[in-house]
């Protein structure tokens, strides 16, 4: 059992654990931590596959930015971020989950059969390095590269527009008011929201126009 095998099994175990915790955790923060664990272990797996540049990117972008963003949002939402346990519609969800697992398994069988066996031999060291991937990035994959920059810009602008809410002159439109009024159980004033927005909620009550 060579060290690489052990190394592989370790990373695989942490990855699966992380994944499970994302799914199972009651509290979203534990989920975020599980996600972090998953991302780090996947980055680890990239190294034996000669994808050093990608492992680095994974750590920086994923771990550094996306998981942090998640945590940030979870903190914003506070306790209501975790949804109460709700038994309704379990059958539908369980059925779709099971079906999905079955499809995943079948897919794996086909893929394995198509791929055939045999482990990879050691390529030369420059494979997967930053200069190799970088050169490809800026020659053949230039167009997707520029496009992805555009994509990110759009995403940022979108996020700002969506999340900015209505600091502007218009209060909630009639339909939103009506919907908000009808279907959401009124939180009892005692339950002071701990989320960052909680101040906003109280102001609105005080301002009276939200009700």
């Amino acid at each position, binding site marked *: 059992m060579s060290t690489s095998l052990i190394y592989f099994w370790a990373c695989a175990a942490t990855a699966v654990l992380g994944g499970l915790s994302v799914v199972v955790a009651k509290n979203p923060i534990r989920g975020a931590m599980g996600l972090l664990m998953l991302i780090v272990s996947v980055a680890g797996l990239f190294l034996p596959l000669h994808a050093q540049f990608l492992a680095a990117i994974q750590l920086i972008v994923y771990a550094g930015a996306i998981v942090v963003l998640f945590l940030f949002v979870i903190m914003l939402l506070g306790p209501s971020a975790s949804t109460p346990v709700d038994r309704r519609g379990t059958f539908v969800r369980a059925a779709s989950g099971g079906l999905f697992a079955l499809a995943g398994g079948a897919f794996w069988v086909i893929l394995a059969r198509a791929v055939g066996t*045999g482990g990879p031999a050691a390529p030369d060291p420059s494979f997967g390095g930053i200069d190799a991937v970088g050169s490809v990035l800026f020659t053949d994959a230039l167009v997707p590269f520029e496009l992805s920059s555009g994509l990110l810009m759009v995403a940022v602008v979108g996020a700002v527009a969506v999340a900015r809410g209505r600091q502007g002159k218009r209060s909630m439109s009639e339909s939103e008011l009506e919907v908000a009024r009808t279907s959401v159980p009124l939180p009892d004033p005692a339950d002071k929201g701990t989320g960052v927005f909680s101040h906003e909620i109280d102001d609105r009550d005080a301002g009276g126009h939200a009700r």
Partner: protein
Amino acid sequence: MIPLEYYVALSALLFVIGGVGFLVRRNALVALMSIEVMLNAANLALVAFNRWRFEHVDARAYAGQDHTGQVFAFFVIAAEAAEVAVGLAIVLSLYRLRRTVRTDEADLLKN
């Protein structure tokens, strides 16, 4: 050396976990996170095949063909970042409107 099936099996498992998570959990945030899991699984498969392809296929359509998998994974990450940003923004505005993140509540588009 670790044969390719191991990597493929792992990515399939992770993918399934992410998928089940997305389908089962009612929480919007967890849904987003399980998408992350699925995408990571995909990245892992991409890189694994990229590595495996180096020996088994010698036809080079163009010079940089060795790293196609990795470049593709790179762009998956970029797309993922954009997706999460917007996703979370939506969750926030949902929260502001309905003060919950339960996906059942977000049914404004009902019939």
